[in-house]
């Protein structure tokens, strides 16, 4: 097969106030017709820039410094904007990360697709265009296309919008489809559907695709080949089987090991130490050397070349040089299909070093004191004067002292609303919340205990960029709650206290006088943790605290949470949509769906024996970083839109399930 896309020694740079940012450095790869190549790496590694530079969609401050891009043998490196317009949509097109913002809000969805149909074929009649749009909408699985044609994007859900974007991208039958994190902004269940759709459509039309993602687990399902990028370079490229079962680059090992799915049963998640380098002045040798525990002397001196392992598998690490010491890869699995490859062990070898760092108490949580008792909590939002949404509908559960309670569910399931009711941010419409027996939702009781309640409960938010005041120094941010409550800082001055707390969460004290925008996402999240912990809280709520962070940083923050919780013993409500994280961190987990709590059980019990069909769907959607298993896995689709009212039944000790009132249910099996 001829190469459809051929990228040779491509380097792309940005001009920035700090200097030239070398976003893509000397990248070469090729793509065959009908093939899916996944590009994986942390944010800022240049994967997105690489795709956009091929389509020439980069802002004016970016330029291709060297290298060439050719499509089906034609060099397009020096094409002008006018020539590129003819190629875009027809030869290649693109799907973007956030479907909420990538459609024009004021144009009907059908018209936006029609526009893409017309742009490369102006001779089509109105009727033909309409037919084609309907056909495309059917292709991407939008039901009732004729009615939906007339609707605006705000009428569509996230998944539907991403389908519409896909219809736009496919309108002129492009040869190559770039998908830039197409599922990152979507819920787990939708994510799997969109990936399946991508794969299905791609096979049906014979389109080649480049799938960009930060998550190795996600791409295992759809990719034929995988390229791993780090600091602007491709460090390893090979078929999916080769990269997943026989990874050779230490960074690939690190990425694989940071996936929480692989840390099952261990006491802390694996993390890659350190931070990715800045690309303004990239290090001389291997950019990964300083984070690499297997780094050799030469790694700091000279850039490793691409070593060929098989016909399709290449990796850039000095470990593959014949003079290098032989190292047993900490990840990877004995290859499938009878093929044997050498240096492989199972995951177990990696666990040893981290084992039993913090022995987990095995005492029964249910016998502890109840800290928070939520009874029949209901919260309604008034859309208009009459239209009401029940964000939380009759939810009851208890949180025991000193436990980590996980709350999972897709976006809009009401999990954040529950947390906000517990924190007195929202006043629930009905039901009550007892905190140490105090009915905090009653105004009188709340006012009487206001100071105590506000001091003992702290909250950490998802978006650290907007939840920290951009114009306050880190030290002031940490000390502010103490000042509000007129507390004497236990370590003398507020500044000393701030310094202590920052060190405690792993931030350098030189950050004391920095402002939040100067910190990275992970550092900012540590800062919000330090702020919350400075008050020595009894109850801590974290609302999706790691959702906006990179995989390796996520693992660092999660480890920090676990460590701090064990040391402080605070009660912890952890809200997430990432089930693997929840399984690793939490003692008990509640699953929410459309405002109702459908299942509640100890974490191990829930993950090994889910009873509610929604929980099963949710669990089946967790991606596994194993291409063979992942491709074979069938998705379960949860059909029901609404969970009706029911009673919350204790099926097994500590394991509750929402069961409809009368017979004829399909939800139970126990």
């Amino acid at each position, binding site marked *: 097969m001829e190469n459809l896309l051929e990228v040779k020694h491509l380097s792309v740079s940005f001009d920035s106030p700090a200097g030239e940012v070398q976003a893509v450095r000397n990248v070469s790869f090729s793509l065959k017709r009908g093939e899916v190549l996944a590009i994986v790496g942390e944010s800022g590694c240049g994967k997105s820039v690489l795709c956009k530079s091929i389509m020439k*969609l980069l802002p004016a401050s970016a330029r291709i410094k060297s290298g060439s891009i050719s499509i089906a043998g034609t060099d397009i490196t020096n094409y002008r*904007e006018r020539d590129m317009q003819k190629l875009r949509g027809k030869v290649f097109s693109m799907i973007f990360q956030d479907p909420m913002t*990538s459609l024009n809000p004021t144009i009907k969805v059908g018209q936006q697709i029609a526009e893409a149909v017309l742009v490369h074929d102006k001779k089509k009649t109105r009727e033909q265009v309409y037919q084609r749009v309907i056909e495309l909408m059917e292709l991407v699985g939008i039901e009732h296309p004729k009615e939906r044609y007339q609707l605006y994007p*705000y009428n569509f859900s996230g998944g539907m919008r991403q389908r519409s974007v896909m219809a736009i991208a496919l309108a002129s039958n492009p040869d190559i489809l770039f998908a830039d994190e197409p599922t990152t902004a979507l819920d787990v269940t939708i994510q799997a559907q969109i990936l399946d759709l991508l794969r299905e459509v791609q096979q049906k039309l014979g389109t080649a695709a480049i799938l960009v993602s930060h998550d190795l687990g996600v791409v295992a399902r759809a990719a034929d080949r995988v390229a791993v990028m780090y600091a602007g370079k491709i460090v390893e490229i090979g078929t999916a089987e080769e990269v997943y079962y026989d990874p050779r680059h230490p960074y690939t090992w690190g990425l694989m090991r940071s996936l929480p799915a692989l840390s099952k049963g261990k006491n802390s998640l694996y993390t890659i130490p350190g931070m990715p380098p800045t690309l303004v002045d990239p290090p001389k040798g291997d950019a990964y050397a300083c984070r690499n525990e297997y780094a050799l002397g030469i790694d700091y001196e000279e850039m490793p070349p691409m070593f060929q392992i098989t016909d399709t598998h290449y990796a850039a690490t000095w470990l593959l040089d014949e003079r290098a010491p032989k190292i047993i890869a900490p990840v990877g699995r004995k290859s499938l299909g009878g093929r044997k490859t050498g240096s492989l062990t199972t995951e177990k070898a990696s666990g040893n070093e981290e084992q039993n760092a913090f022995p987990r108490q095995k005492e029964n949580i249910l016998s502890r004191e109840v800290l928070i008792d939520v009874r029949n909590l209901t919260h309604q939002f008034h859309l208009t*004067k*009459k239209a009401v949404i029940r964000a939380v509908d009759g939810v009851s559960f208890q949180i025991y002292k000193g436990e980590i309670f996980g709350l999972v569910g897709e976006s809009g399931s009401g999990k954040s609303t529950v947390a906000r009711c517990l924190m007195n941010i929202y006043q629930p419409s009905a039901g009550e919340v007892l905190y140490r027996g105090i009915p905090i939702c009653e105004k009188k009781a709340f006012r009487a205990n206001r100071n105590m309640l506000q001091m003992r409960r702290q909250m950490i938010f998802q978006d650290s960029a907007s939840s920290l005041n951009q114009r306050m120094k880190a030290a002031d941010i940490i000390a502010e709650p103490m000042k509000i409550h007129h507390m004497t800082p236990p370590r003398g001055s507020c500044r000393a206290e701030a310094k202590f707390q920052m060190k405690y969460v792993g931030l350098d004290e030189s950050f004391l006088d920095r402002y939040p925008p100067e910190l990275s996402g992970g550092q900012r999240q540590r800062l919000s943790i330090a702020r919350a912990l400075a008050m020595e809280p009894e109850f801590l709520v974290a609302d999706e605290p790691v959702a906006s962070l990179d995989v390796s940083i996520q693992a660092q923050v999660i480890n920090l949470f676990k460590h701090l919780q064990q040391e402080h013993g605070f009660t912890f409500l952890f809200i997430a949509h990432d089930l693997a994280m929840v399984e690793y961190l939490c003692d008990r987990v509640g699953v929410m769906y459309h405002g109702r709590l459908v299942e509640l059980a100890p974490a191990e019990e829930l993950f090994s024996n889910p009873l509610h069909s929604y929980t099963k769907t949710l669990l089946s959607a967790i991606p596994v970083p194993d291409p063979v298993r992942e491709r074979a896995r069938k998705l379960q689709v949860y059909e029901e839109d609404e969970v009706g009212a029911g009673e919350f039944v204790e099926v097994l000790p500590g394991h509750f399930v929402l069961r409809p009132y009368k017979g004829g249910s399909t939800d139970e099996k126990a």
Partner: protein
Amino acid sequence: MRKRNRALYYGKKLLIFLFSVLVLSAVVFYVARLAPGDPLVSYYGDRTEKMSPKEREWAMEKLGLDEPIHVQYVKWMQNAFHGDFGISFKYKRDVVEVIRGRIVNTLLLGGIGFLCIFVGSLLLGVFCAWHEDRWIDRILCKLGTVSSCIPEFWLSLVLILIFAVTLRVLPSSGAYSTGRANDIGDRVRHLILPLAIVTIEHLWYYAYMIRNKLLEEVRADYVLLAKAKGLNKRRILFWHCLRNVLPAYLSIMAIAVPHVLGGTFVVETVFSYPGIGALSYESARYHDYNLLMLLCMMSGILVIFCNMLSQIINEHIDPRIKASEVAETSEVTAA
């Protein structure tokens, strides 16, 4: 059902409109009378000082100022509904007649000025956005900053000096030359300089807004998708971006209408242009209540009307606004 909702929706709008006008008239009526000063001065001039208390009483009664405010207000309302807005104390004529002569002048100046600003700033803003950061855009932006800093009376004087005094191509004052009231060419020549001032003073502000909003839109994600579709720059800018900028622009423009019309005051003074600007000032200063009421009501109705108009237009451009509004109306009727 949907049609009924629409009708109800506009009905609701109309009710709000009438209510706003009512409140406005009451407030203006009351506040005007609260201001310190003697309303009789505007009618009787210097004679007022020499009046005996008895004469004063008689004069007050004659002008209808002796009654309590609310009674005066009700009377004024009743008369207003019959088209009688009272007489001007100063000009001793029907106020409608006083205004009639001048409103045409102001509407010519303000109306044409507004149109120039509306169209001009849109074109200029789009033009600058199109040429973002190229030399032409930079020069125009710098020029805009400079011209916004120049006070209008100074600029007026400079223009008069150049075009009327030195070059002698344009007249320096008035709305028409004596005896040529019906000569359109002459009127136009008188209009050019004031119009230029009004336009220059406002144009840049709105052009900037269009430019910056457009550039904000150009960086939105949907533009990237539109580019990836293969659309050209013109289509993206005019079809995709402009429609998202227009709602904000129209809202601003609606507020600008009375601003531009009222802002002609300085220009009218410098050019001795007989318009409403100077008249409003005088009416407030000399407690010419009836005149003041009519002028305030006119500009007030204009503001409210323009705001409503822009809202209705916006709803047609941006379906999200309409959806929430109509939903609300239908919910109310369902209740």
